[in-house]
């Protein structure tokens, strides 16, 4: 039986792609770290999204880990052929062995609203 975080991660990916319009998974759907999910959201400022999630108690990251806070799109995502209007809105979520189903549920409750708020701001 696969570890709980693996199943929670898969649930997180499925729900995120289903609930949020203009959302894509980046990287391979299966051949990836078992606790790792990464997305791009069209017309979202990734750093802004991180802040909104952090305030709600979720620590995620955006862009390359080595360029945190840089407002340029990640070189890796760009090299994968993702345009900058998508690549700027990247989000990386990782789970731990102690992450619970309830935590994922509350994250999935917060994320769509946070993405929407970011899009409202980008549109201005």
């Amino acid at each position, binding site marked *: 039986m696969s570890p709980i975080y693996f199943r929670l991660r898969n649930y997180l990916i499925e729900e995120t792609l289903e609930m949020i319009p203009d959302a894509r998974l980046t990287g391979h759907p299966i051949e990836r770290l078992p606790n790792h999910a990464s997305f791009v959201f069209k017309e979202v400022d990734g750093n*802004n999204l991180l802040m*909104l999630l952090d305030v709600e108690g979720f620590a995620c990251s955006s862009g390359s880990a080595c360029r945190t*806070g840089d*407002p340029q799109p990640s070189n890796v995502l760009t090299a994968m052929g993702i345009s900058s209007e998508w690549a700027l809105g990247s989000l990386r979520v990782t789970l731990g062995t102690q992450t619970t189903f309830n935590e994922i549920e509350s994250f999935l409750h917060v994320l769509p609203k946070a993405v929407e708020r970011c899009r409202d*701001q980008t549109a201005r």
Partner: protein
Amino acid sequence: MNKQTRVVVAMSGGVDSSVAAALLVEKGYEVIGVMLRLWSESGQETHNRCCTPDAVALARRVAAKLDIPFYAIDAKKVFRKEVVEYFIDGYANGTTPNPCLVCNRRIRWGFLLDKAVSLGARYFATGHYARLDHNKHGYISLLRAIDRVKDQSYVLHMLNQAQLGHTMLPLGGIIKSQVRQIARDFDLPISERNESQDLCFLGNGSYREFLLRNASYLDKHGLIIKGDGTHLGVHQGQAFYTIGQRKGLGISAPHPLYVLEKDIRTNVIIVGQKEELGKIELEAESVNWISGEPPKTPFHAQIKIRYKSSAVRGFVTPHDARRFHIEFEKPLRDITPGQAAVLYADDRCLGGGIIK
């Protein structure tokens, strides 16, 4: 009581904004610290006084001490577009612009206030020295700070009722020495940086060097003449001279000569003696009335024509919602196009406009 009310504080790592944050934490608000990363010329990134890496680190330590979240928000692009371009355009149009006013309106109470609201904040707070008074009809007045020496209502005169409705100014009711004491009481890690009059994005150099690097087309030589048309010399470009300037004109004359006027059409600078310098009236544009409504009749007011000048009496005639005329009781020597004329009735800031 205040536990449910979220407040975003603009922090700089300096003592004022740090104490503003501390006071809000003490009152029980749910406080979030934010700091803007503003634009610097490439190669000068560590010199922007508002947000050097050191200043960001310091603000982060203050936030950690107060146990509040802290975010550095990138505002380089919007700052370059709204503030730096305004600054360069102002000089290109022959004025002496005040970019801090635009920064407050468009960046702090625009870009950053939007971020604060999206973070779920009810209020946006800064370490400015000025007070707000909410009357029972829901109107908000902007008042001078209790600390008259530190009063910063001048740079907030262009805020509207909607912006003020989201604003908290925790330092308006206390004086600077109390602020320093509170910083010690909270044991805040603060360095006493020199309070500079220079603009944050100028780095270590002067505005002249900045303009030469970033708007080299302003390097346009022209004639310096007297009012009667006598040629006295050559100037290096109008942008590098300010009304009232005496030093650095590079001309010799029996009496000291001052810049009286810049004719932008002919690229000529007109100089004259001190007695010719004063003007008794001015026109202001881009006017903001704090109340949201221009007064219907002319009125007497106290007027500040520069951030650090003292208020003088004058008679104000509003033309329409966005323009007014002032006639002073005595001629003033430092009426400078591009700076703001800010109007007061006793402690109350009524609004102001940009001198034409």
